[in-house]
């Protein structure tokens, strides 16, 4: 089975229409009907959460946490303001899906945020948009204005008398601000560094109020679930992994880009859709879930299906669905040097293991790459990684360790060759 996927898509279906981002296109194809129905029927929040639970929608931001369960953590009878926040920071190298949702289907994200706001009793929603996509910030503001004029946002949504608004917040390109609590600090106007948890955002979030944070793709999936039912969403994918998912495939393929396909699709099929490995080259390795996911050698990834369970079993992370493909010309030492430089530069610097350890790992890999490696360096890197992972405030620490340890684990002989011969065995 290697034909392109032609079944229903949850998020990027508007691309099959002219003017994909327009309110007309969205409404003409059932857009905002779920919201209208919920408000007209005053659907109880518990019923909505139940549908989300049935759908097996799992957080698309990287951690894969079941969305319905997360929503159920929000205190129901809290007196005072609550917030929902959409995480469009999308800073993970290899990930470029959320920007396409904002660009090509903004109203579905708005509808998702409004339904989430209704369900969770929030006073307002914020969309935190990555700092390097200024034009999308503007188009998003435009979409919000359209929705307000059409009565889908504001003081009297769909004539129900219920008020809710969504605000845009511009990030400034710091990767760590994608971490949900750093993001909250950043919205509050503070330095974007993660908070220690507990307390979790559901009890102490934005401005200290109960807050739910979801990824763009997660929230954009909500209207589809409410229109078609949780079961239909689940049926698109496989058990425990509902829905279709956008995969951002990059690297050495002929047709890099976003592909929205069912959860559980074999990796091999995605590779075919993306035009296969660069002509004349062979697959060497794949980072399956964004740069912090451990790398998998060709033979392992070719046996995987694209879902949380299969990738986890193979020893990596489904992450955000960013698939980075490397062919045989890639020097794994050089690739790791670049990755570890990213984490070194992006650590917020708050906690000791990450602040000091990321620089240490980068410098050692840099030395190896530049012909100054020492035999003990590989064990040292593994050990430094062990001293970081699991001992930091946020997951950036682990994210920095994932590549280092997996590259060495799967491609140790390449590193040893570098150290011994002071040059690359790939010869690229």
């Amino acid at each position, binding site marked *: 089975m290697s034909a392109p996927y032609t079944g229903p898509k949850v998020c990027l279906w508007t691309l099959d229409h002219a003017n994909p981002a327009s309110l007309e296109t969205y409404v003409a194809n059932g857009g905002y009907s779920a919201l209208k129905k919920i408000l007209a029927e005053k659907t109880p929040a518990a019923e909505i959460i139940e549908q989300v639970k049935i759908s097996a929608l799992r957080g698309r931001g990287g951690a894969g946490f079941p969305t319905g369960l997360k929503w159920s953590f929000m205190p129901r009878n809290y007196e005072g303001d609550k917030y929902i926040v959409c995480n469009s920071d999308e800073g993970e190298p290899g990930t470029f899906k959320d920007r396409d949702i904002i660009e090509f289907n903004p109203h579905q994200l708005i509808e998702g945020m409004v339904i989430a706001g209704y369900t969770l009793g929030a006073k307002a929603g914020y969309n935190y948009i990555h700092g390097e996509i200024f034009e999308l910030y503007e188009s998003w503001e435009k979409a919000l204005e359209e929705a307000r004029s059409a009565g889908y946002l504001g003081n009297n949504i769909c004539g129900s008398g219920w008020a809710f608004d969504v605000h845009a917040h511009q990030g400034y390109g*710091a990767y*760590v601000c994608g971490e949900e609590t750093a993001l909250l600090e950043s919205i509050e106007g503070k*330095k974007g560094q993660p908070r*220690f948890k*507990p307390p979790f955002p559901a009890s102490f979030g934005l401005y200290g109020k109960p807050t739910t944070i979801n990824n763009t793709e997660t929230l954009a999936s909500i209207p589809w679930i409410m229109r078609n039912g949780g079961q239909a969403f689940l049926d698109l994918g496989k058990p425990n992994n509902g829905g279709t998912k956008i995969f951002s495939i990059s690297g050495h393929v002929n047709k890099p880009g976003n592909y929205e396909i069912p959860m559980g699709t074999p990796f091999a099929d995605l590779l075919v859709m993306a035009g296969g490995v660069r002509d004349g080259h062979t697959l060497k390795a794949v980072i399956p879930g964004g740069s912090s996911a451990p790398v998998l050698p060709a033979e392992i990834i070719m046996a995987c299906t694209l879902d949380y369970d299969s990738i986890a079993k193979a020893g990596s992370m489904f992450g955000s669905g960013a698939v980075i493909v490397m062919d045989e010309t890639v020097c794994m030492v050089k690739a790791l040097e670049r990755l570890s430089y990213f984490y*070194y*530069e*992006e*650590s*917020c*610097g*708050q*906690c*000791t*293991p*990450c*602040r*000091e*350890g*990321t*620089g*240490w790992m980068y*410098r*050692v890999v840099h*030395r190896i790459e530049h012909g100054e490696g*020492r035999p003990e360096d590989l064990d*040292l890197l593994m050990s430094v990684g*062990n*001293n970081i992972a*699991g*001992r*930091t*405030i946020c997951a950036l620490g682990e994210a920095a360790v994932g590549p280092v340890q997996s590259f060495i684990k799967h491609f140790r002989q390449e590193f040893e060759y570098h150290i011994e011969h002071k040059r690359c065995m790939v010869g690229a």
Partner: protein
Amino acid sequence: MPLITIDDQQIEIAAGSTVMDAARAAGIYIPHFCYHKKLSIAASCRMCLIEVEKAPKPLPACATPVTDGMVVRSYSAKAVEAQKGVMEFLLINHPLDCPICDQGGECQLQDIAVGYGGVASRYAEAKRVVKEKDLGPLVATDMTRCIHCSRCVRFGQEIAGIMELGMPGRGEHTEVMPFLEHHVSSELSGNVIDLCPVGALTSKPFRFSARSWEMARRKGISPHDGLGSNLALQVKDNRVMRVTPVDNEAINECWLADRDRFSYQALNSAERLTRPMVKDGGRWVEVDWPKAMAFAAGALKVIRDTHGASAIGFIASPHQTVEELYLFQKLARALGCENIDSRIDRVDFSGRRDGVEWLGMAVTDLNKLDRVLLVASTVRKEQPLIAQRLRQAVKKGAQVNVVHCADDDLLCSVANKLIARPSDLVNILAQVAKAVGADIDGLSDVVVSDAARAMAASLKSGEKKAVLLGAVAQQHPAASELHVLAQAIAKATGATLGFLVDSANAVGAGVVGCRPRQGGLNAAAMFVAPKKAYVILGAEPELDAADSAVAHQALAGAELVIALSPFKTAGADYAQVMLPVAAYAETAGSYVNMEGRLQSWCAAIPPQGEARTAWKVLRVLGNQFGLAGFDQDSAEQVLAEALPEGEATVRARLNNEIADVTVAHLNAAAGIERLGDTAVYQLDAYSRRAPALQVTVDGQVGHAAMACGALIARLGLSEDKPVKVRQSDAEVVFKLMRDDRLPDNVVRLAGGLAAAVQLGPRFGPISLEKM
């Protein structure tokens, strides 16, 4: 209460506590850097990682809440492995320059590294170097040593009330620094030196002058404001090298104001008087003690025999000890003189007072107040640590209401404020009194403003309340009227009336009777109608008096001035005898703080040169006159005589009540007037002789004339330029600075300035002229 087990020890602790709290309660030490008992939790250094049963990863003790039945291991192989990992990370970029670091020997990093550090480093890469930052004259930086614990940053935000240090930059590039173009200028800034666990922030005045282990730590009490902060005087070769706080939750907690911390410089000042001196034909000659004492006693006897004892004035500084002040008044009275006072900066003594003015409550009660009316207090500079306590109260929801002559930034939210010129102060306080329905006569013509009404509403709500009179209220020409109004407001609202006592032993001075009784003159009267002779103990009346010009003239015109002082300059031009006495650190003694707490200490160092402890000098003077009752052998003996029941004697004499005062000064004066409150580093002989304090922002501002922009413009003057300041008949040039927090027609020019002596009164008409 949850029951938890740490290292096989069972601890019951309040819900909501952290594992670190529990460990501390049980006396178990968990290594830590970012944790500090007074600061919010950062959980960032990760040094405190511990093993918790059933938790997959090590958890930070400082941020992990206890749960019932929790089993914690702080020293298991897993915990120690995690701790050692963190220590290795902390050390890889640390310069390890302990031999040239002032923190050496008292460094948490050094200490913990002994237990958790490796012998050799596995780190073979280049180390980070961080550029130094200029934090002003008090705090030195070696930023390469910083371990990013963020204590200094949190201190600014949470305790000092002003975020002067931040941590811009990410990852390894994170650096602690002040905001661009700014120094650190908080009056509490020195505390970051104690908070910094490494040698990144150290004391600039102390820099490289001793190693921590070379110094003995001796207990002392701060000689400045009336709080009585507990000090550790750190001594090497009989010299106080630096001062650090001694924890006392009831008083200073673990903090010190910069004044408390850096004024020790005065002990080593070149202005110290080290030998007795007698003026001979207009020239000072050094003499030995017997000669000096014989001369002093002989000259004083002549005055008494020719003019009577009431021709003598006895003036003491309220920063002298209980023992000294007791013997001082005893000597005066034994000589038959009732002209005794230590309230040098007061001018209004009207009304009937029945006791010694005090805070009216415990210092710790300040944090628990719901409502405060702060009357004429430049509180941050008068009482830096009291201001800090009020900020903590505000954080917990207290409403602070301010009546003052300057809209100074209290670094916390102020519920309501009434700001007016000094001559209008009685009127605005009367408005509040009228608005709360106080039972007091003479307010029928007072027009109550909306702000006064709002303030009244605030004061009428809440449970625990206080009306606090600051130094400006006490120094004010209508101080008694302000007092009686405050008393009426307190009564009407159920508040406690308290005095923010601004000198270390003003309460003690009152309690031991350093006040004129029947027939005696108060300090102001002793200068207005000059005496033939003055005996001065530690005071500099020409600087600190309510009217410095009048005081100076009286002293200069006297036939005899005997000055007992640790410093040469005080009295050098007008005295006939100067007797070098021990400074606060050089004598055993006691202070009574503003809450009536008696605190005694032993001498930390011997007196400089030939100086002698003042109580002994006073005893010998008594002996010279052949007076009975001057045969004490120790400071303890003097104290037992002065306060037979100790603190109980003190308490019996404390009373804030005032009677027989008519509120009359309800109309503001026309024209420009002076606000001569005391500058933070001009409070006393010690603070004004600490060079490092004088060059701080506060120190510099304290030497300038300040006015609001509107007044400067109207007078055609320029800010930051010299200006002629005219008061009475005198004219002095000062730098004019702009402060828009002052009301119009007010020139703030601190009292206590040597350059301003000729100008005279702290309050009253003043004018500014172009140069």
